[in-house]
């Protein structure tokens, strides 16, 4: 029973990690928090849904389309809301507020188009088979979710550590001015970060839609709250921390539903967030944070 719960938690937590990895990368590189990341997630889920139902595509093309769509939204967000602020000397709250505005616009447009009802991926989108592994039942869906999330996350880490662009991204995260002096096109790196982070958010949207078998226009809010908890848990801007934080939150949620009560599942993330703020605000792997003026 306990091991079964762990398997469920792994599927849930992997998606949280996938969502948070982009969220934390944006903070690490651009030092802003985009509160539109939940809306991007929702856009990705609906793009995948449309590709699956209207064009009857399989899961991999659906994921690619959803990542492209949400990456595009990320590009537009950067163009419309974040880049103009970067040009000016902005108050540190300005990008947060601008992205709240963008999230409201995106969500209400989608509510106008899709309404408030829940949508489902077509039956048999992922074959309904069970695998048994030492008494633990794993559905093919769970396996798909876990594998896809981890493959994407490993690709991200490989990209950041081994490729030229990835190194540029890390250099800008370290210090954008020095990066610019070294000839890194900082603006392009910012754009690229927004696109890639948003596309990861979109992929998380499709996987969440599959996991719970519902997609609706309000799905961005709850994941945004969880994403926030996860990136604080892992230390803001820390990719590996976000991965670990997502898994921890997944386990905490599943275990609290299994052993306490399902009513307060949405409150678990806040409890965890609050606890970490009290005990170790720099996150589980974090170093001491220097206050910046």
């Amino acid at each position, binding site marked *: 029973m306990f091991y079964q719960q762990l398997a469920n938690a792994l599927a849930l937590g992997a998606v949280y990690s996938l969502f948070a990895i982009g969220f934390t990368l944006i903070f690490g590189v651009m030092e802003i*928090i985009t*509160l539109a990341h939940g809306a991007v997630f929702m856009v990705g889920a609906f793009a995948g849904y449309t590709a699956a139902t209207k064009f009857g595509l399989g899961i991999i093309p659906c994921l690619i389309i959803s990542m492209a769509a949400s990456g595009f939204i990320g590009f537009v967000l950067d163009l*419309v*809301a974040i880049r*103009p*602020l970067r040009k*000016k000397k*902005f*108050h*540190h*709250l*300005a990008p*947060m*507020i*601008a992205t*709240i*505005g*963008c*999230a*409201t*616009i995106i*969500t*209400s*447009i989608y*509510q*106008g188009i899709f309404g408030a009802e829940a949508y489902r991926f077509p039956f048999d989108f992922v074959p309904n088979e069970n695998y048994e592994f030492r008494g633990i039942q794993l559905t093919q869906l769970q396996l798909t979710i876990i594998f896809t999330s981890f493959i994407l996350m490993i690709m991200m880490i490989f990209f950041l550590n081994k490729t030229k662009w990835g190194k540029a991204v890390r250099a800008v995260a370290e210090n954008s001015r020095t990066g610019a002096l070294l000839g890194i096109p900082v603006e392009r790196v910012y754009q690229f970060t927004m696109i890639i982070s948003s596309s990861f958010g979109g992929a998380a949207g499709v996987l969440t839609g599959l996991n719970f078998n519902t997609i609706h226009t309000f799905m961005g*809010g*709850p994941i*945004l*709250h969880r994403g*926030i*908890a996860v990136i*604080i848990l892992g230390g*803001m801007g820390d990719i590996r921390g976000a991965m670990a934080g997502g898994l921890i939150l997944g386990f905490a949620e599943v275990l609290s539903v299994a052993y306490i009560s399902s*009513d*307060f599942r*949405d*409150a678990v*993330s*806040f*409890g965890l*967030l*609050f606890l970490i*703020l*009290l005990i170790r*605000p720099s996150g589980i792997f974090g170093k001491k*944070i220097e*206050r*910046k*003026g």
Partner: protein
Amino acid sequence: MSDFLISFWQTYNTLFYTIFIHGMLGLSIYLTLACGLLSLGNAAFMGIGAYTSALLTMKAGFPFGISLIAGGILPSMVALAIGIPTLRLSGVYLAMATLGFGEVVRVVLLNMEITGGSMGINGIPQKTELWHLVLIMGIIIFFFIRLRDSKYGRAMEAINEDEVASSVMGIRTTYFKVWTFTAGAFIAGVAGGLNAHFTYFISPREYGFEPAVDILTFAILGGTKTFWGPIAGSAILTVLPEMMRFMGPYRLAVNGIILLLVVLYLPNGIVSRGTFISLKKLFSERKSNA
């Protein structure tokens, strides 16, 4: 003329009540914004205040005044408990903690028995009169006028300009940040109590993320350089939706567009020198053209 006034009043008097309540909410978030902090929990504080005061008048039979004050005190206690750990850190943490906190309040209200779950509380006695609102608004405005040139007001301004520098100057930044956050929660709670005794129905849905964004929009549109900004902003944004009814489901997008445009083009809001200067420019250009 008087007939027109009477019919106008009968149609739109609720709008005036709402303008006052929204004005108080705008002021409640102004306090934290004036310190350079973003709190997204004011809708939740309003909710705590609304439920507290409604339950006290209905279940315990408290007089209206006392339950209103209790509806302000409880949220400010909660704010104190959240504020002390989060406000030691940079302002970003408050925004994120309050965002999560709002969700928790909604979930708790949905699952508790005494709050009536998702059905909310129905049939709250309608005790809020217009003069209550005018009086309380007057007290709050008096408080803000006194605040502006006091030690507290100046400390808030200094923290907003540069937190590190003001802490070096000997301002106890955490103390002032916690204080503004708590006072803002008190005002939001009182506004919630007044609202509950005016609409006689409350449910958890009214205190989620969307109302929090609405409150933020009031203050950002009006501007946070002076406290008149949020008041003007909430008056505009209370009247505007009445005119936007034709937009149907896309009405919320208007709020988002306003938020975005104001942050990009009027970073100090409508009630600010920037608007004044651009208006002056506009008029002088017209004159020179003519």
